[in-house]
């Protein structure tokens, strides 16, 4: 009995058992409540797949037939090319059938009228449950096992299965929702096809008007684009300034600069906007000071694009800094030394050698700033003024009084178009250029200092901006202790007690209003973080270590979800996962999967970069000694990837807590998230509690990040840490 047969046997047993034991359809109370076990016999909707088929759900017969066929193949044919080919066919047929039957018949019978006229009425079916999910995985694995038997990728079933499952997951959680947002645009309220909504919205002057060039106001699409370009330019320049100061000057507070840059990443996004209004609004502290001192009337300049821009630059500069610092450090001192040896001055060297070598990093930082600005939801919500930006317009066209999902779909398409074109443009621009400056030869020396004429202005800007950031954050921390900001500055703990109080009368009780959403947020973030890291690392390993056809497309598909703004994700998840075949709205699962697939690209990038530092001979040694690829990944690669794991864990954890744009559509009564709750507080003008809650979140995040660091530990190398070789400039 060889390995091919063994794994096929196990898989078939699993499928068979799930058909006989696991309920085929979704259970209202939730699978893990296990309340369904008691009623499993009396309630036909809870029956496993095999019994459903016997009871007359003929749409399940093909599934059983295909399982029988696969078993037949296993028993009659030896493993090899023929069996492999047929296993692949059976797997594909199974998946296609599941998709077709799941999409075509919903809760109340056929989803499309055409089918009803052809086949007559059928009884409706609930959404897929545990049984159906296992069968879907069964068919996916059949494909990869079949491919392994045919000898694809040296017959490595682990790699093949990983690829197949990842493709399945990305198809379900990224592409299916995006597709459904576009089909939603062409659907009426009752599900029938219509183009009316799209036609009405697609050339709406409120979206496309260019009259601001002639003194009027421009359409929301242009305003958003303009804002994104401004934000991206400003964050890139500021990020570069910070990176230069941190690496190439004798500025004394470099360490604290690094600390400062971490802060905005762990801040719930709209909090910055809130602090800005308290500082610079018409009756903000600073405004009052200036008005009192000079007598000028500053007014409400903060509201509108200017204010959003300021808040976004505050929030995203650190991210740009983190992207750029690696690049600025990576520029080899040898090149600069060579330039200086050839008698170029410091300024000329900087301009002609250092800056051009930083180009890919600059492009990356610009792209990230652009996409973050496009996707930003919290700041425009607080500082929006009369005109919104695309992300808030999408939100209000769904929840506002106009209730126009097709408008949301059109706006989402425009937003998606902008971000994806930026993403593509950056990819095209960077491919085919060589920015590698690390040639494997040891670098001597250190980076040249900045020329004076650059250094002074840059240090000045950095110092000013840091001061500004510190003030804004001081406002956030202290704001929670003031009774009523702007009116009654008595110090009080009331806001904290209201949010996080506990009471002991008649037993211990979490009486604070924030506890509920707080625990939910922590739980979901703690579930999502390891999953995100796992999926990201697995993908990164596949991309950097395995060669398979279509790898470039695979990589692009995975990275694409980074370019999809959160608002679009939120809307599309609601549209896709509210009805059978896959129904997850109102559960914690929808939040978890949203976080996993939204934050995974960062984990992928991190592990690709880290794996580039590990020599392939390590894997080869392990494989030669008889370990299979799964074992190699687990025992050799993973322990060496600790820093990358840490980064992925931290990032996904923090993003799960601070993101708002997607979450606000996905929260439910049972699973409410902290950010959605805080937005409600802000909307109601309860700034004190909102800020108190945000400060607590910030402190908690810092603590948990420390905890992750402790758990994952450092990478243990039995020599001094690897010198920074291979840090390729192209990100």
């Amino acid at each position, binding site marked *: 009995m060889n390995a091919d047969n063994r794994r096929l046997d196990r898989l078939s047993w699993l499928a068979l058992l799930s058909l006989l034991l696991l309920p085929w359809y979704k259970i209202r109370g939730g699978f*893990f409540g296990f309340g369904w076990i008691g009623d499993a016999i009396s309630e036909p909707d809870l029956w496993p797949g095999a019994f459903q088929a016997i009871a007359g759900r003929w749409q399940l017969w093909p599934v059983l037939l295909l399982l029988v066929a696969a078993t037949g193949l296993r028993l009659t044919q030896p493993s090899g090319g023929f069996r492999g080919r047929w296993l692949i066919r059976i797997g594909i047929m199974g998946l296609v059938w599941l998709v077709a039957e799941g999409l075509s018949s919903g809760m109340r019978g056929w989803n499309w009228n055409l089918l009803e006229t052809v086949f007559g009425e059928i009884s409706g079916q609930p959404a897929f449950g545990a049984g159906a999910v296992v069968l879907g995985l069964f068919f996916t694995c059949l494909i990869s096992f079949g491919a392994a038997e045919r000898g694809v990728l040296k017959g490595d079933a682990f790699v093949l299965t990983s690829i197949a499952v990842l493709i399945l997951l990305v198809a379900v959680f990224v592409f299916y929702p995006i597709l459904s947002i576009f089909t939603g645009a062409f659907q009426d309220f009752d599900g029938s096809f219509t183009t009316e909504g799209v036609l009405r919205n697609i050339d709406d002057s*409120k979206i496309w008007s260019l009259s601001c060039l002639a003194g009027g*106001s421009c359409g929301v699409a242009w305003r958003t684009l303009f804002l994104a370009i401004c934000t991206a330019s400003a964050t890139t320049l500021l990020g570069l300034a910070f990176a230069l100061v941190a690496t190439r000057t004798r500025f004394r507070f470099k360490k604290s600069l690094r600390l400062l840059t971490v802060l905005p990443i762990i801040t719930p996004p709209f909090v910055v906007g809130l602090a800005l209004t308290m500082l610079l609004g018409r009756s903000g502290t600073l405004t009052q000071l200036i008005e009192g001192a000079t007598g000028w009337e500053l007014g409400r300049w903060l509201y509108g694009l200017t204010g959003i821009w300021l808040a976004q630059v505050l929030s995203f500069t650190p991210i740009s800094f983190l992207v750029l610092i690696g690049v600025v450090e990576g520029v080899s001192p040898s090149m600069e030394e060579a330039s200086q040896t050839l008698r170029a001055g410091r300024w000329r060297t900087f301009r002609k050698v250092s800056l051009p070598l930083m180009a890919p990093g600059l492009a990356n930082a610009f792209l990230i700033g652009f996409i973050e600005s496009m996707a930003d939801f919290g700041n425009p919500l607080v500082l929006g003024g009369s005109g919104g930006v695309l992300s*808030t317009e999408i939100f209000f066209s769904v929840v*506002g009084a106009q*209730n126009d999902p097709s408008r949301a779909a059109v706006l989402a398409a425009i937003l998606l178009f902008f971000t994806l074109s930026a993403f593509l443009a950056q990819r095209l621009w960077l491919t085919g250029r060589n920015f590698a400056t690390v040639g494997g030869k040891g670098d001597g020396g250190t980076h040249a200092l900045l020329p004076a004429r650059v250094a002074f202005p840059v240090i000045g800007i950095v110092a000013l901006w840091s001061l500004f950031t510190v003030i804004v954050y001081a406002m956030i921390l202290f704001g929670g202790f003031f009774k009523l900001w702007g009116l009654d500055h008595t110090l009080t703990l009331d806001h904290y007690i209201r949010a996080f109080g506990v009471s002991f009368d008649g037993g211990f009780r979490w009486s604070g209003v924030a506890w509920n959403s707080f625990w939910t947020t922590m739980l979901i973030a703690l579930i999502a973080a390891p999953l995100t890291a796992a999926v990201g690392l697995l993908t990164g390993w596949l991309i950097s270590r395995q060669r398979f056809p279509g790898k470039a497309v695979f990589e692009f598909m995975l990275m694409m979800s980074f370019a999809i703004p959160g608002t679009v994700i939120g809307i599309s998840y609601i549209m896709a996962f509210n009805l059978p075949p896959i129904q997850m709205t109102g559960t914690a699962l929808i939040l978890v999967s949203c976080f996993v697939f939204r934050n995974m690209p960062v984990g992928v990038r991190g592990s690709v970069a880290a794996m580039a530092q590990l020599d392939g001979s390590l894997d080869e040694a392990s494989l030669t000694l008889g370990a299979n690829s799964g074992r190699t990944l687990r025992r050799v690669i993973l322990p060496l990837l600790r820093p990358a794991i840490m980064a992925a864990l931290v990032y996904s954890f923090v993003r799960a807590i601070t993101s708002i744009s997607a979450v606000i559509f996905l929260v*439910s009564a049972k699973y409410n998230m902290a950010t959605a709750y805080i937005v409600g507080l802000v909307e109601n003008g309860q700034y004190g509690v909102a800020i108190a809650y945000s400060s607590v979140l910030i402190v908690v995040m810092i603590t948990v990040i420390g905890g992750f660091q402790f758990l994952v530990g450092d990478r243990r190398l039995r020599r001094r840490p690897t010198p920074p070789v291979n840090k390729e400039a192209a990100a």
Partner: protein
Amino acid sequence: MTIRTAAIAAGAVIALPAWSAGAAELNLICSADVVICERLVSEFEASHSDIGVNMVRLSSGEAYAKVRAEARNPQTDLWWGGTGDPHLQAAADGLTAEYESPMLPELRDWAVQQAEISGHRTVGVYSGALGWGYNTQIFEKKGLAKPACWADLLDPALKGEIQIADPNSSGTAYTTLATLVQIMGEDEAFDYLKKLDANISQYTKSGSAPVKAAARGEAGLGIVFMHDAVSQSVEGFPVKTIAPCEGTGYEVGSMSLIEGAVNPDEAKVFYDWVLGVDVQNVMPEAGSYQIPSNKEAVASEHSPDLSQIKLIDYDFAEYGSSERRKALLARWDSEIGGQASE
């Protein structure tokens, strides 16, 4: 190995839809101020220990969107609070269920009327009149007169001082629009709004945001429901609440049972309980300055006295209807909203 991976992946995919099970549940959308919502839930849970309430606060627009999006598979049982229009809309769309509460005879006329025009798919729970709140400090500093009538708001001295919500996103602003149309006639109302536009600094997204801006001095005056203005002055902000002299419209905050709800029985328990006099008497403590719907319930001492306010005979059936609403909003968009600048 592969099997195990598959099993782990399967576990991850099906993962954790629910942690708790057992006791009866009620999924509640609450569209009032979050403090009121929380008070309501804690009062209910204190008196009904067998029912656990999952509450989420959504503005009435968000709530309607959610209820509609989930029409074929509702996740919500009961929707309490928020302007009456979306509730009526939901009733017209058949998204909410008919229920004649035994408490109906105890309710005030406007609450019962709300139930009757919707075919008992919704019911009034509180009401409040439209007006505005102005920041007395700013008005004093600028030497402005107290604006007592709609007409006073057109004073050029108020340029850039007024805020009101965008009727496309806010039920409050739509009520204002409909009120002005009913007071003045449609063309005159749009004329008025065009002139008013010169004084408006910002069309906010949320209905009560204007008076919150006024309270903090970010604006001079916000056109809102009067109870929202009152709650700002009770908080201690220098806000004075005004009922317009020409007359004004009002909202009927409503409550609806969702059609096809999972826990209809628990929802009905809550429904009847919340219409009772005891709970409505508690609400002012949570900062609710609306007029309660139970005849016996006493409004807060801070609440604007409805008998002193000139209320128009607001036609909820007509202005709550989908066509009228779309037409008015379209006209607002083309004549006023489209011109709004930063």
